[in-house]
């Protein structure tokens, strides 16, 4: 086999030999292309599958774990939350607007395929420093807004960080959350020999051919030539597709719905059949509605044209389904049927053009055995050598103005975060919350990852990401339920990168086990490097959902009542390693990330949830990046109320800079009326959690007697310095 041809379909000579062995003949061109896309890292997880098995994926509330279009957990009253996060990093690097837009479109279809109505979008973004990365940043933000705003699904949460390591490899992870009655959850299984395969939505064009393979390579100077591998989104069409798919619940003629995403028709048909033992499929590409003339069977099978779904329909009832799509002026075409021979057979009219075992496509890719090797640890940090903060107030202002900590209001107002009339906690605080209409349930959701911690210690960093996401959920008063993860890493062929991946997955598994959080869906994005260098920080993004039984008991992050006691829950240590303070004030990305005790973390969650449930709290905020002082400033700015505090006198060995700026985990800043103090103190004792008084809410500045006093106006000016971006 010509090596150049193999490279084009992103197969290695070893993989080609495996194909020959299993197929016992040489694949033809169409078959080679189909195998190439499905055996790509993006589709086959050949480098990561063994690791992913370590993640806990079951639990009492799980109604659908990994392996489907999205995961699902029960949230009460007969409802399930369906959710998944997915990366669109490579396309967004080349064509930021369309890359991000189609990333959003793709994740929405994953949720639709489960029979759920998508109710919310979130994202997690990484860019190089501004203004150099403004092409990426502007394009991605506009693309996310362009798609989400048009389709009418609110974008309610997200995070964005700026670090040098993402300058050539921005990360664009999109998460979608949907709702479905638990008994109406769909699964994309091609059941029933003879049932029809109906392709609906957009016509098929030549766009996105080899997209999945492209996403499985490092970027290089020729990557921009791959722009045709980036698809173009049509959110209007997807809106119609969404509503038509919702209308499918009116008929029981539908067996399954499957999204056409990476690797297009090939993947959709193979995956649908692959989930049923012994099932196969016979399809005719001549029946696929096309956007342009002259497309070959190869083009049709590999196209990644957006806004398409495959629907498995009971034989003889195709007309019922077609009429639902017709009402939305959508094309649908019966392109084939389910078979019982375990083969995916492709015809072009009468000519057979491909015939491959389904299992060869979906499970045949040889798993890669990669070797991890711990690199030199990043350089340490001698905390004792750091000078004490000369002016904590000035440090606070610089931190609030740092790109990683500034208010994201300027971003969230570019996204419609209200459509649907369900957003009861808007973006800008910790987690967002949507009510489930017709119930008292509130569904909290967040995305989180501090990749700097993961760079310094991937095992601990991944645990911290899970813990912080959980804290975001808990801060609203909701119980964390389950996780979706997006593992963004560099080239795993490099032992130090594979080691990062191993460590991060182990950390993730450990934290999820201890916090009882099953990982029900996820995605892996590797090869986020350019020209063999400038690898990204390991970035295991955590998406999480949680539930509160009565959303009237939800908590916001902002202070609400003058005169309230402002409390720190949890204890502070000299955790300056990897902190934003260290980077902004001392120019270091160094040291060990904060130590995490998951048992203590859990105890703190229980305390906050008990206090929220009993109505003792007026607000709660996760104390994270920037430490206590930044967290407190956020509470003040979000609530429009200042705080007066006595001077901080840390007990040795705690340092003053750490008391203000250390990022010790398992901490919350809460406010409560003075009359609730006895109850709060007894709750803290019962849960064996430290509770300390920071100060009293009131005034229009943050004051620590004799140490700092900064007006809210000054703080806001610094914090909102990015609004103009």
């Amino acid at each position, binding site marked *: 086999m010509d090596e150049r041809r193999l490279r084009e379909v992103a197969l290695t000579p070893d993989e080609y030999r495996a194909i020959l062995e299993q197929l016992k003949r040489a694949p033809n061109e169409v078959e080679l292309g189909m195998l190439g896309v499905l055996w790509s890292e993006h589709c086959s997880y050949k480098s990561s599958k063994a690791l992913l098995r370590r993640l806990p994926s079951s639990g009492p509330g799980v109604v659908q774990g990994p392996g489907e279009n999205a995961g699902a957990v029960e949230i009460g009253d007969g409802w399930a939350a369906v959710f998944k996060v997915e990366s669109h990093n490579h396309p967004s690097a080349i064509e930021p607007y369309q890359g991000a837009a189609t990333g959003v479109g793709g994740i929405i279809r994953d949720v639709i395929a489960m029979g759920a109505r998508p109710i919310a979008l979130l994202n997690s973004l990484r860019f190089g420093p501004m203004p150099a990365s403004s092409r990426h940043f502007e394009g991605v933000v506009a693309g996310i807004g362009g798609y989400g705003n*048009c389709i009418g699904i609110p974008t309610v949460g997200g995070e964005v960080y700026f670090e040098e390591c993402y300058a050539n490899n921005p990360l664009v992870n999109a998460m979608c959350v949907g709702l479905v009655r638990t008994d109406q959850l769909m699964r994309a299984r091609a059941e029933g020999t003879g049932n029809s395969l109906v392709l609906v939505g957009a016509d098929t064009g030549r766009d996105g051919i080899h997209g999945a393979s492209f996403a499985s390579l490092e970027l290089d100077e020729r990557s921009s030539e791959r722009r045709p591998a980036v698809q173009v989104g049509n*959110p209007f069409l997807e809106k119609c597709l969404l509503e038509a798919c919702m209308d499918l619940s009116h008929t029981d003629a539908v067996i399954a719905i499957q999204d056409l995403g990476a690797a297009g028709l090939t993947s959709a048909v193979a995956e649908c059949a692959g989930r049923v033992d012994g099932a196969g499929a016979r399809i005719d590409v001549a029946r696929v509605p096309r956007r342009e003339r002259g497309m070959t069977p190869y083009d049709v099978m590999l196209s990644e044209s957006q806004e398409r779904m495959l629907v498995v329909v009971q034989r003889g009832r195709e007309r019922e389904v077609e009429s639902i799509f017709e009402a939305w002026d959508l094309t649908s075409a019966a392109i084939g049927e389910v078979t019982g021979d375990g083969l995916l057979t492709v015809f072009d009219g009468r000519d057979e053009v491909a015939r491959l075992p389904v299992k060869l496509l979906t499970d045949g890719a040889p798993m890669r055995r990669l070797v991890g090797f711990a690199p030199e640890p990043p350089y340490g940090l001698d905390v004792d050598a750091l000078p004490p903060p000369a002016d904590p107030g000035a440090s606070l202002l610089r931190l609030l103005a740092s790109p990683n900590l500034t208010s994201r209001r300027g971003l969230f107002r570019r996204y419609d975060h209200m459509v649907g*009339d369900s957003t009861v906690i808007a973006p800008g605080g910790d987690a967002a919350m949507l009510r489930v209409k017709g119930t008292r349930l509130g569904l909290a959701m967040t995305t989180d990852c501090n990749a700097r911690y993961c760079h310094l210690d991937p095992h601990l960093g991944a645990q911290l990401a899970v813990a912080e996401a959980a804290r975001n959920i808990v801060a609203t008063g909701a119980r964390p339920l389950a996780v979706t993860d997006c593992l963004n890493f560099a080239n795993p062929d490099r032992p130090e990168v594979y080691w990062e991946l191993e460590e991060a997955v182990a950390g993730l598994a450990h934290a999820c086990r201890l916090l009882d959080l099953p990982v029900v869906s996820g995605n892996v994005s590797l090869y986020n490097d350019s020209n063999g260098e400038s690898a990204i920080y390991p970035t295991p993004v955590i998406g999480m959902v949680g539930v509160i039984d009565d959303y009237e008991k939800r908590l916001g992050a902002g202070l609400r009542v003058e005169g309230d006691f402002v409390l720190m829950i949890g204890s502070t240590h000299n955790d300056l390693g990897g902190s934003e303070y260290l980077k902004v004030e001392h120019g270091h990305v160094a040291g060990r990330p904060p130590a995490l005790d998951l048992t203590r973390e859990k105890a703190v969650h229980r305390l906050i949830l008990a206090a929220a449930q009993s109505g003792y709290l007026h607000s709660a905020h996760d104390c994270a990046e920037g430490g206590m002082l930044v967290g407190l400033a956020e509470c003040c700015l979000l609530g429009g109320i200042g705080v007066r505090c006595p001077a901080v006198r840390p007990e040795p060995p705690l340092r003053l800079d750490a008391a203000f700026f250390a990022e010790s985990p398992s901490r919350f800043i809460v406010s409560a009326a003075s009359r609730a103090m006895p109850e709060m103190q007894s709750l803290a004792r019962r849960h064996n959690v430290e509770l300390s008084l920071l100060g009293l809410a009131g005034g229009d500045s943050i004051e620590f007697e004799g140490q700092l006093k900064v007006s809210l106006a000054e703080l806001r000016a610094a914090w909102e310095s990015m609004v103009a971006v």
Partner: protein
Amino acid sequence: MKFGVVVFPGTWSDRDCGWVIDQVLGQELTYLWHKDADLKGCDCIILPGGFAYGDYLRTGAIARFAPVMEKVGEFADRGGLVWGICNGFQVLCEAGLLPGALIRNASLEFRCEWTNLAVERTDLAFTSQCEEREVLRVPIAHGEGSYFADPATLSHLEQRGQVVFRYCDANGRVVPNANPNGSLHNIAGIANARGNVLGMMPHPERCSEAELGGTDGLKLFRSVAESAMKVLVS
């Protein structure tokens, strides 16, 4: 009172408006499909927010040709209540039921945020429950909501008092800083001369319950519902 909410392909505030009418206000609700040639006996037609037909070409430019719009035009001519919200306002302007046009926001960006609206007319069916010069807190969500009209049209509108809502600060002052999109004269909503057709960019259906951040929008829905009561009584 029977409300009819029009659904174009690409409309997304239909269900939000429907929720307020049906679940919050307990009024009769029916959805009107863009291909419908019958308004099903509705007393008030709402053209809700969204991106009708994708808003490709120009916002509202294709929607005005929908079969249902012919009936909506006839209904308006007969004095029926027609209420365009966001995309619906854009459609009403394209259809010629209201003067002027909505152009790209001055910021060139989509904006989803809370605004304050000074109510300038309280004698309309849509605003009868509002106080004189009342300030309503209502969110916007649009990329093309900057109201534009030629000087003659604008002065005509002002002279006849057709400006119903203006963006203002929390104290009711109509100042440039309170204008989120560059609308001429801070215009957020206008009515036709007869007062039975209202177009507004802000979304009252998003602030009709306390848990969503405010209930000022409900005053407008209530006004419409009450106006029908009055008709029945008189």
